[in-house]
């Protein structure tokens, strides 16, 4: 591992190379239909890194994410986050789903505080209100704190769910196709927002996506997965400079990377 900090703002050298997530020999077999969802997956994610996984439906990427989140036990292998094994849900993991999943009977701010309330009680949630308000400002929803989710647009709801994910200051962000239900313009915008938030907080993120362009524009590395059994075929490093912009989509390098990954994915389709 070469410590090669880019010309970003100076960070402690240790934090830029420290592994946050370590996954070894991970496999998952669904006993009922003897389906091997994951086969010998090995993966290390460094602090501050943005890693995406891409693959066709049923390649095991959702299973991988659930195991990483501690929502599902693996059949074999080990998952370690910040030096501690993941056996069940963890407060230092923040998750985001395809739908915003805001509770319609709670206001935006109540929704954002909900994880704190569930973990630490009502009092702790009250104390976290200022932090939650700052987060809402960060994503430009400052004026919508006391509004019910029914009055938010799809993009606004997903921004609120970003806040809910960040409120407990997680070490790891797990993103399960978070913007795939949004229209393309909103999606581009949200991707840039996500990048900005991740950079500001030096967040470590793991994104499951169907979209090649989204994966390339956001990631430092892309894991290309194939099904039957689910395994990683290639770990593609994305050498586009940061911060990324939407204009980069039109550069030759971007095109090359997309073509390469499409090729890796396409082979499976024809097999």
């Amino acid at each position, binding site marked *: 591992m070469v410590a090669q900090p880019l010309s970003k703002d100076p960070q402690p050298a240790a934090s830029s190379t420290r592994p946050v997530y370590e996954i070894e020999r991970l496999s998952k077999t669904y006993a009922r239909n003897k389906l091997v969802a994951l086969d010998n997956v090995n993966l290390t994610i460094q602090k501050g890194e943005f890693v995406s996984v891409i693959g066709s439906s049923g390649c095991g990427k959702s299973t991988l994410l*659930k195991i990483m989140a*501690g929502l599902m036990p693996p059949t074999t292998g080990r998952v370690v986050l910040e030096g501690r094994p993941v056996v069940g849900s963890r407060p230092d993991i923040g998750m985001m789903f395809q739908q915003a*999943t805001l509770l319609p009977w709670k206001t935006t701010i109540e929704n954002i505080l909900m994880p704190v309330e569930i973990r630490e009680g009502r009092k702790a949630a009250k104390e976290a209100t200022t932090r939650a308000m700052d987060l809402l400002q960060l994503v430009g929803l400052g004026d919508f704190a006391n509004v019910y989710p029914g009055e938010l647009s799809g993009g606004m709801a997903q921004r609120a769910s970003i806040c809910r994910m960040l409120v407990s200051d997680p070490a790891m962000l797990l993103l399960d196709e978070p913007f795939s239900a949004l229209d393309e313009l909103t999606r581009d915008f949200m991707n840039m927002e996500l990048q900005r938030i991740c950079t500001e907080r030096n967040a470590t993120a793991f994104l499951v996506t169907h979209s090649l362009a989204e994966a390339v524009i956001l990631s430092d590395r892309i894991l290309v997965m194939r099904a039957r059994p689910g395994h990683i075929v290639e770990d593609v490093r994305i050498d586009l400079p940061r911060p990324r912009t939407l204009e980069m989509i039109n550069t030759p390098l971007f095109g090359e990377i997309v073509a390469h990954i499409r090729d890796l994915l396409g082979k499976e389709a024809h097999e």
Partner: protein
Amino acid sequence: MTDAPNAATMTTGADTVWVEHEAFIDRIPRWVAMTLLFVFVVGLWDLVTRMRWVSAIILPTPGETLADLIFVGQNLIAGGYMLEALWTTTLTVFYGFLIAVAIGFSLGLLVGETKFGERAVMPYLVAIDTMPKVAFAPLFIAWLGFDISSKVALAAFIATFPIVVATAAGLYAASENERMLFKSIGASRMQTLIRLKLPTGLPYIFTGLKIASVGVMAGAITGEFLGGGKGFGALIRQSASQLDTPRVFALILYLSLLGLLLYFTVVWAQRRFVFWNKSDRPGGAA
């Protein structure tokens, strides 16, 4: 509408405002429509009885019915024996509904929240639910006697099942993502139930309560038909056996007020507690 050709309109840049045509039947305001329909039905009823197309014993005239409505109304206001009967039936319906809610909700929780309930309890509930529940009336009378309790039992028995089914369905209604979210933030089973599954299921539960509020009336009256006693059902049966059809009609109309009261109490509670469910917001009267 102008007679000017399109080209002229375009060159002058005038607004192209036009009115979408709406058929007459869609334009009638609610109160006019309701009045029209009422007048039509009563008019038809009057015609049919006036022309003696139907025997007076089978169908009284609107006038006779109105006279009886007034008579029964006077008796109710004066606090006569009919008010006593109505009060008996009201109590029967009230207790029956309370018991049905308590048992139905508990069983619904068991079925919707535990695998045991889903696997073991639900099949038996479905089996009992498919039986004609009114047929149990003689059993309830044999067990509980001819007073109010046997009627309460039948009313509760009929009203329980829709609440069980609705509660269980409501608990299943939370989406996979919402469950995952709660799991990922480390919510306990109880927290997930109270903060996610129950609120998500409330619209379903209220639908069950509405069905139950109709069922509990049917159960109470059936019980009074079969088991006698002092309720409104017994009055109706008595009037019917005397071929006093106008009285039967009048009694049924007053009885329907009790049903409506219960039903709209549930509707009111739903609007109060499920305020986020836009599909059921007030606006169009229920």
